[in-house]
């Protein structure tokens, strides 16, 4: 027994040393999460417009086109709980904050992440590693860059090894460039995305109430800031084929929240005719030209309401 335990212990120690060293090396590779976190830490006292949400926000709003200091803190697939966490983390230093723009996609009210959960929940590890998002003690896989791997991570590391600057989408203002460099232009066949974005029994989803409360907490915590719930434009192959019931349900929830608070506005640009084919990177993400157009629209709107 002693021999067995000794050998297992030695093996485990060697393994942990190796994994620990690799983990430290991997964390040195810049990524969107580490870059955005560092930028937020550096700039948060000057930020007047803060954008939060998922990839539609990340690739859809380019803060350079606002005439006030703005920062895009959105991340791919980010649910509201993570947006709230980032906001709370930097809240005490956001002295100049005037506007918070939150993306309201057709799946936002139904999305939440739990450690070890399915779908995009593997991204929790980035929030834990770079933003100190709390996770349960037994959740080992969300503590390491090296665990909970997928193909995209491997590719990211490969690119990082070849070009240390080539794996970060985010610019100095948090906007995501080069979407098309990493994604296929999915124009006509977006059925997979629609399936992933569709929630069965959406009206009975327990996450709706949870996300509604998150939004209410954000709004109530920032009574002097304008909170804008933004549904970004999408291409017709997406808008026409999504579950229209779910879409209208999300619009209803967003309007209800906006009606409830004076400082909250719901902007629905889902089928906005000003956006043409050139403005889209794929059926549900804007291109850089589209992001420029949307940001200018938002800028004009913010100037109007202020």
């Amino acid at each position, binding site marked *: 027994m002693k021999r*067995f335990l000794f*050998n*297992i212990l030695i093996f485990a120690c060697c393994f942990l040393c190796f*994994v620990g060293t690799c983990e430290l090396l991997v964390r040195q590779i810049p990524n969107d999460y580490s870059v955005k976190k560092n930028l937020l830490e550096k700039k948060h006292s000057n930020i007047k417009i803060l954008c939060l949400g998922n990839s539609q926000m990340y690739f859809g709003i380019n803060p350079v086109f606002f005439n006030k200091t703005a920062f895009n803190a959105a991340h791919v697939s980010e649910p509201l709980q993570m947006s709230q966490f980032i906001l709370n983390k930097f809240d005490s230093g956001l002295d100049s904050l005037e506007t918070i723009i939150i993306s309201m996609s057709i799946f936002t009210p139904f999305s939440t992440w739990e450690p070890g959960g399915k779908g995009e929940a593997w991204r929790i590890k980035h929030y834990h590693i770079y933003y100190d998002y709390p996770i349960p003690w*037994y959740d*080992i896989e969300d503590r390491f860059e*090296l*665990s909970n791997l997928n193909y995209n991570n491997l590719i990211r590391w490969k690119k990082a090894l070849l070009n240390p600057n080539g794996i970060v989408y985010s610019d100095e203002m948090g906007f995501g460039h080069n979407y098309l460099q990493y994604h296929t232009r999915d124009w006509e066949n977006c059925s997979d995305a629609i*399936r992933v974005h569709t929630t069965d029994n959406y009206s009975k989803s327990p996450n709706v109430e949870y996300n509604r409360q998150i939004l209410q907490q954000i709004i109530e915590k920032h009574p002097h800031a304008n909170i804008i719930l933004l549904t970004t434009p999408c291409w017709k192959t997406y808008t026409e084929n999504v579950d229209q019931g779910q879409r209208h349900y999300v619009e209803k929830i967003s309007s209800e929240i906006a009606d409830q608070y004076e400082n909250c506005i719901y902007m629905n640009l889902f089928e906005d005719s000003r956006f043409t084919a050139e403005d889209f990177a794929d059926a549900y993400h804007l291109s850089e030209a589209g992001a420029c157009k949307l940001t200018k629209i938002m800028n004009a709107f913010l100037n109007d309401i202020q």
Partner: protein
Amino acid sequence: MDFTSVSFFLFIIVLFFLYWLFEKKSYKIQNALIVIASCFFYCLMDWRCFGLIVITTLSSYYSGLLLERHSSDIRKRKLIHWLNIIINVSILAFFKYCNFFIDSFVNLLNVFGCTTDFVTLNIILPLGISFYTFKAISYSIDVYNRKINPTHDLIAFTAFITFFLEITAGPIDRATNLLSQLETKRFFKYDVALNGVRQILWGLFKKIVIANNCALYVNSAFANPADKTGGTLALAGILFTIQIYGDFSGYTDIAIGVGKLFGFNLTKNFNYPYLSRNIAEFWRKWHISLTSWFRDYIYIPLGGSRCSKWKIIRNTFIVYLVSGLWHGANWTFVIWGLYHACLFLPLILTGRNKKYKDTIADGKYILTWKEIGQIVCTFVLVTFGWIIFRADSIEQAGLIFSKIFTYKPLSIDFTNEYALYILLSIIMFVVEWFQRKQEHALCFTKSPKWIRIMVCFIVLLCIFAFWGNEQTFIYSQF
């Protein structure tokens, strides 16, 4: 707390030290620990139906004792035996098949134009019910047939039925194997324990690295087959074939490996089934504990192979019909069972169903063209079966088959991500090919120590890297 969770391994570590603390005292204390651990494990997974496992255990235990007491009274023995079988089968039938039969009956009446207002009940499927019920039934039949003596040790018997390593997805161990081990002293053996750790690693590799990643493609394709091309669905079928093997044999390897740490030798459940040359060989190597259960308790009592060809065919169809139903209350499983029975037909008619009992390419590393053809054919036939098995309904299975053969069969929705997973699957099969005569793929006997350590290191690294994409064990739903 499934077998790939951190909590499970913490549970095992604590139990391991407690268990061997009593090595020098009495094995009965170790058995009691196993019972407590098993009850804790079961209740943690699903406490709601714990009462059922108690009923099954007590019913089978006392029926064994009564059979012994009335050993000379044939009528009473028969009565006790059948009463126990009826109790066990009724519990299984009610909780697993009640709604299925009600639904099927209503549908049948609808076909004849009768409308009924039957309502289905909201019944939960008790965890592991198919596995522990079959264990209990095998014990009862063996006692009734006087193949074994009934046990007088209730704790050992409870440990046998509720054994936490086998409760969720088998293997369906026999009393002759596991109960006899529970009734004797166990000793810690260094080599066995180390071999167990390696087997756990290989099981985790198959489940976490192979099965869980294949599941991503499979789930996506089967969730929406109407939108997929024939090539994509065919690839999904192949990946499900790999997934279900990695999932189930991975689970079994973990169970057997952990069993070795506690001094148990659990029944082998897989013997490299995809290296089979015909369907009969496949079934001798796939889910061995279930196949042998059906062979011993259904096929042979019906006459087995020692009767006319017509009866052999009838017996085969009965066995695979029951086998299909055992897997789940859905017509897809019934069709899957009958499909496999049909695959046996040519073998039975030509008398080749008992061929290929040896190890494939024994003593060689290279297969003959004939063997390659046989393995590929068997793999393809099995894959068709798994498509039926995986489909949500017969209609969906029909849609998938029609698309595979008619709608863009060469167009595959494929990314480099899946190429990586396929590559890992190929590595798994290559390793298993070279180790096909061994108990498991990491069972090294002649390799130098540093190679053994390096291989285990790489396997553990892969497990760690892919850990996180959790998927429920497929067979824990049966």
